[in-house]
């Protein structure tokens, strides 16, 4: 009786939770409803976690004696895990969001992998289908765990350079193949086809080892510009793994939530790959950049440096300015300073817009979040497709810490590694200011002809410092608001 009631309550609560999670994501379609969307999803999640303690009443005979310890462990794990993550999630800088998301995502993958491990070690007498699904979830979850950790290390600059050893792709393929083979052998052995040469528990350990190794190897060669795609892929992976383990545990809420994220991640990945004009397969399995072999075409023109204050004052008297922010702005934490400058321009009657490239930053939409943090209203922020036609009518394009996303080579040079990638047409503006720390190349390692164009002027310096001096130069003109 108690078992039936528990199952009824768990089933109902999980049903509601699954709905709330979906509805929450649904509400994330607009900045207006999105904050309530995450709250709705949060309520669903809390209910599901609370209800799962009713599993206490449904456990089998074997686990009954361990129950007090298990409950204690569960409460401790919940408190520690949630506490630490909550604290760090509250504290992490907005610029460090991509790392944080990568890390939390890896945790989810790890949890899915751990569930699979318990299922496998416990060997609860499942059929072949169950075993295959468990193994598949274990594989994907483990790859997501170790891959996300490497992605986190890269984004956090603990790992500086993409590792690019010749033949690494072959090694990766081999590792993945061996993992799959071990899995197939386990299924075959479990079905009674053979007495395993190695004891089953060791096979499970080997399987997880290979999966984790593959996640590391797969992520190591992927470079900075492709990082947003990688995070998105691992997000989808974790979702899939959770969905698959949900099937193994016969929990439809997990199946639904997991698959939802799997599909979402896949779609996001595809959108980003399109924005870079690279196929997902290419991003994941070939490292970025052509090496140094490709000859840079002779670039006409020269770099023309100007003072930040001059640039600032010129923009003050322009009619329209389009700002192209990039990762350099995030690095220098200059978003607040930039918005101070923009507020001055707007007070002086200058029309200002922020043009966002889909893959600017280290995560899709990272620039949007960064600007939002500085207090920039979202109606000033426009996306590539909506703004690109406006560059040719703009007086000034101000490129801050962005490079590859405004490289005209993508339009013209067929040999360029970024050829075909849609770019922001900053070169078509009447005048273009580029704020950069030095003459360095972008993440793609390509020289940008835009910087050498006749109407482009370079403002050298840290983005935040440049914004500060631009602001002060304009303030120095005195009461701009009154003049406008």
């Amino acid at each position: 009786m108690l078992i039936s009631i528990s199952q009824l309550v768990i089933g109902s609560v999980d049903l509601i939770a699954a709905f709330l999670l979906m509805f929450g994501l649904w509400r994330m379609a607009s900045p207006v409803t999105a904050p309530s969307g995450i709250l709705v999803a949060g309520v669903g999640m809390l209910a599901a976690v609370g209800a799962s303690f009713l599993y206490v009443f449904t456990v089998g005979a074997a686990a009954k004696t361990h129950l007090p310890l298990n409950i204690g462990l569960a409460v401790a794990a919940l408190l520690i895990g949630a506490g630490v993550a909550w604290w760090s999630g509250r504290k992490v800088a907005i610029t460090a969001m991509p790392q944080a998301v990568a890390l939390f995502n890896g945790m989810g993958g790890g949890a899915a992998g751990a569930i699979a491990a318990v299922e496998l070690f416990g060997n609860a007498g499942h059929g072949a289908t169950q075993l295959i699904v468990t193994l598949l979830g274990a594989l994907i979850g483990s790859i997501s765990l170790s891959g996300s950790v490497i992605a986190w290390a890269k984004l956090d600059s603990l790992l500086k350079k993409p590792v690019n050893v010749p033949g690494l792709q072959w090694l990766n393929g081999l590792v993945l193949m061996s993992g799959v083979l071990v899995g197939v052998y386990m299924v075959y052995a479990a079905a009674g086809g053979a007495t395993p040469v190695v004891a089953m528990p060791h096979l499970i350990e080997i399987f997880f080892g290979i999966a984790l190794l593959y996640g590391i190897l797969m992520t190591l060669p992927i470079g900075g510009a492709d990082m947003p795609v990688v995070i998105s892929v691992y997000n989808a992976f974790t979702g899939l793994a959770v969905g698959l383990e949900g099937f193994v545990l016969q929990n439809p809420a997990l199946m639904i939530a997991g698959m939802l994220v799997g599909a979402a991640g896949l779609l996001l990945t595809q959108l980003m790959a399109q924005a870079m004009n690279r196929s997902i397969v290419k991003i994941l399995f070939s490292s970025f950049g052509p090496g140094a072999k490709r000859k840079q075409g002779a670039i006409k023109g020269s770099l023309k440096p100007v003072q930040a204050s001059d640039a600032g004052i010129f923009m003050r008297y322009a009619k329209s300015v389009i700002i192209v922010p990039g990762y350099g702005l995030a690095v220098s934490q200059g978003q607040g300073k930039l918005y101070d400058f923009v507020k001055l321009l707007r007070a002086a009657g200058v029309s200002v817009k922020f043009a966002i490239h889909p893959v600017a930053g280290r995560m899709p939409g990272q620039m949007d979040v960064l600007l939002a943090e500085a207090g920039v209203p979202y109606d000033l922020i426009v996306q590539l497709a909506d703004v690109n036609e406006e560059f040719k009518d703009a007086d000034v394009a101000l490129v801050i810490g962005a490079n590859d996303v405004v490289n005209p080579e993508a339009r013209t040079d067929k040999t360029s590694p970024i050829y075909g990638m849609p770019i922001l047409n900053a070169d078509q503006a009447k005048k273009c200011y580029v704020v950069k720390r030095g003459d360095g190349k972008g993440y793609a390692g390509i020289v940008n002809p835009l910087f050498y164009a006749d109407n482009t002027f370079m403002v050298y310096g840290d983005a935040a410092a440049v914004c500060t001096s631009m602001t002060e130069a304009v303030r120095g003109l005195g009461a701009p608001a009154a003049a406008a």
Partner: protein
Amino acid sequence: MSYQIHIDGFVAIYIFMVTAFAGWVIIGRVPAILHTPLMSGSNFVHGIVVVGGLFTLLNASAPLEQVIGFFAVLLGAGNVAGGFAVTQRMLAMFKSSGQGAPHAAHGAKHAKSAKHAASAAVKPINPKKK
């Protein structure tokens, strides 16, 4: 009467199919400006894995299972709490022109500013207003 859930073969595939479709449609509506919170939000959603972790841990009957189950719950709980905290923080920052005061931007303080001001203020003005 039993309320034990039992999902098998084709039913599972049907569930996966419909959900994948729903996910595709739901996410397709989200504008690019919200892609980071969306990713973080979906990251939070797959944190439901913690429920599976709890089920596994509560049903554990051997020390090894208990240890791994503990980590499943630990990691899952981290996924949920971290994902929520990060997403909520990001979404709270999105404001339209009409809405209240902008958030204070955090970041480095700039001690250099005074020096820049001195050099900038005296520059001759070169108006090109059209």
